[in-house]
């Protein structure tokens, strides 16, 4: 087990700057998830930690040791690949023992470790099979077993579940979470799926265009997204965004006007914002209430989705073309074509400034 520290890490491929000044620390035994849209550099960042790519600038430490120039084998990392990367001509046992065998580990130790790993991952029955005789989930477990058998200081996962079907993904996600709980080892996990990130992580790192957008616990990211990007990326269905205009505001709170919602008094501090400034208002689907339409402030229902336990009501937006989503417990009395008023829960409304940065809640209202 070890911690990982990244300081001003940069990576340039040819003329493309992939990773830009990333600072990050992964504590001992922590489960950290890198999440972001494709092309944000999350896999590259993981491969930099693994040593599969060279670092262009900055410092990478594993434990206390600077490992910038160490080859992967000297970093004490184990990696699970998206495509499993099992050796096709070896049995499950051989796959797991291969690294140990060539490291000249004693035969008894190899057997002991492989068997112990196989027991944890429930692979004992499969030890003599070849990868092609295994299902996707089993291959995934073997890939994890191979990485674990060497008892690395850090386990790295590169989108390990994206080749599995939806139900298996949920099951494997659970197994990985339990594995982390049991082993307590340091894990760094890359995914583009925010649900995986939310369910697995102690700490989520949201990446965008090679930069760290926000680092925090799943709860922090969900409740207090630092930017509009994080707010939109985390949570499903996604947060509703509406343009809003600042009427007046101070360090203690503000009043904004949003088309279709009318005037709202919000607890955000708008220091440094001029009256009339264009803001973005964000509300999660579960923090909206639907009411009978009155006056001009109404929206037309575009669609109603019934999911059994809950209902999504889609509303025509006043600006832009992304439908607004309202989420409530089933059943719902709302029908397509009806006009309704939207009432946001004011304690859960997010405000973003012109640069898409979240405006902080004013101090006294936070205390209250």
């Amino acid at each position, binding site marked *: 087990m070890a911690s990982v520290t990244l300081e001003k890490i940069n990576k340039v491929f040819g003329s493309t700057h992939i990773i830009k000044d990333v600072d990050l620390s992964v504590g001992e035994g922590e489960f950290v998830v890198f999440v972001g849209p494709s092309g944000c550099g999350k896999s590259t960042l993981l491969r930099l930690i693994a*040593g*599969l790519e060279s670092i262009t600038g900055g410092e990478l430490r594993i434990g206390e040791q600077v490992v910038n120039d160490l080859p992967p*084998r*000297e970093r004490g990392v*184990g*990696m699970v690949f998206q495509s499993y*990367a099992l*050796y096709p*001509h070896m049995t499950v046992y051989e796959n797991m023992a*291969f690294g140990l065998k060539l490291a000249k580990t004693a035969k008894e130790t190899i057997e002991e470790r492989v068997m112990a790993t196989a027991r944890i991952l429930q692979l004992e029955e499969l030890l003599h099979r070849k990868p092609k005789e295994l299902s996707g989930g089993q291959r995934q477990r073997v890939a994890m077993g191979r990485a674990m058998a060497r008892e690395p200081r850090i386990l790295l996962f590169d989108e390990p579940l994206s080749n599995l079907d939806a139900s298996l993904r949920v099951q494997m996600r659970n197994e990985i979470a339990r594995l982390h709980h049991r082993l307590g080892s340091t894990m760094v996990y890359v995914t583009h799926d925010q649900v995986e990130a939310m369910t697995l992580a102690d700490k989520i790192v949201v990446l965008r265009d090679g930069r760290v957008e926000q680092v925090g616990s799943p709860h922090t990211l969900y409740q207090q997204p630092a930017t509009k990007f994080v707010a939109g990326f985390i949570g499903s269905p996604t947060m509703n965004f509406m343009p809003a205009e600042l009427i007046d505001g101070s360090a203690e709170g503000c009043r904004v006007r949003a088309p279709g919602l009318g005037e709202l008094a919000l607890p955000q501090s708008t220091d440094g914002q001029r009256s009339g400034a264009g803001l973005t208002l964000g509300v999660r689907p579960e923090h909206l209430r639907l009411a009978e339409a009155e006056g001009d402030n109404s929206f037309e229902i575009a669609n109603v989705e019934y999911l059994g336990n809950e209902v999504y009501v889609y509303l025509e937006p006043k600006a832009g073309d992304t439908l607004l989503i309202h989420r409530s417990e089933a059943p719902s009395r709302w029908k397509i074509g009806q006009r309704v008023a939207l009432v946001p829960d004011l304690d859960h409304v997010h405000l973003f400034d012109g640069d898409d940065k979240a405006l902080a809640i004013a101090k006294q209202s936070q205390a209250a």
Partner: protein
Amino acid sequence: MSIPATEGAPQAVRPRQAGYRGTKVRRQRVRAAWTFLTPMLFALALVAGWPLLRTFYFSFTDASLSDTTSALFIGFENYLVYDDGAWYGLLTDPIWWRSVWNTLFFSVVSVSLEVVFGIIVALLLNAEFKGRMLVRAAVLIPWAIPTIVSAKMWAWMLNDQFGIINHLLMALGIIDSPIPWTASATYSMWAVIMVDVWKTIPFVALLVLAALQMLPKDCYEAAEVDGIHPVKVFFRVTLPLITPALLVAVIFRLLDALRVFDVIYVLTSNSTSTMTMSIYARQQLVEFQDVGYGSAASTLLFLIIALVTVLYLYLGRRQLGVDQ
């Protein structure tokens, strides 16, 4: 569970009637298969089957090249005959056995060298470097040149008086006097092996390169993270994974090498130190006009190649997927 006999009986019969074997679709497929196969089988019988049977037949006769129609059946006399207190026939001819030995030696050595160098060239071509496409094309040149042409070219280069090879070696001070590469009993076998290896490396390299490019790239990254030395990765991962392709390359080359004729005939003609089974058979059949005896040699050549092939397929059955 007990099923009344009246209900059970038709159930038991039905699968057979509606079985895959008897269906209309099945019959149509069988008919289509035969339709496509027949011309091929006919052509094979005409160009391979018939000459082969003729050769078998002639090997039991005293046919001569000038007159094959009046050939008399003489049984196994071309192979082995006891006459006047001594054994005669192909099986007692030391030059024949020398040819067999030469053929096997040539085949084993040249194919082994081709495989080793073929793999090395393929690994080089598989690496990323500038102008890779150009080098790939250039490597193919020896394979693209007709054997007669390249053999003649090498014959000139290896010429003991005017050949550039002797000239270079002497200029470098490696040898004092010119070596008669293709004429000397010591060097001629190695000279023909070298020319054959030079010519066929591209073939093996190309097959191996195709196999290399099919390999899963991520395995190599996994091995890198696992800290496995690249040389070990080659022997423990790459080599096992390209073995099926390698075995295919070897059988192609082995069949070619066992019936080798052109390169050796052009370089060393009928010299016994490099004479192969094919050259021996040709000499008997064409130069000595003895169709019966030459056919006996050809028949044995066929049997030896068949034996080696069967043996090879049997030994490599798992890797080649023959029994799957």
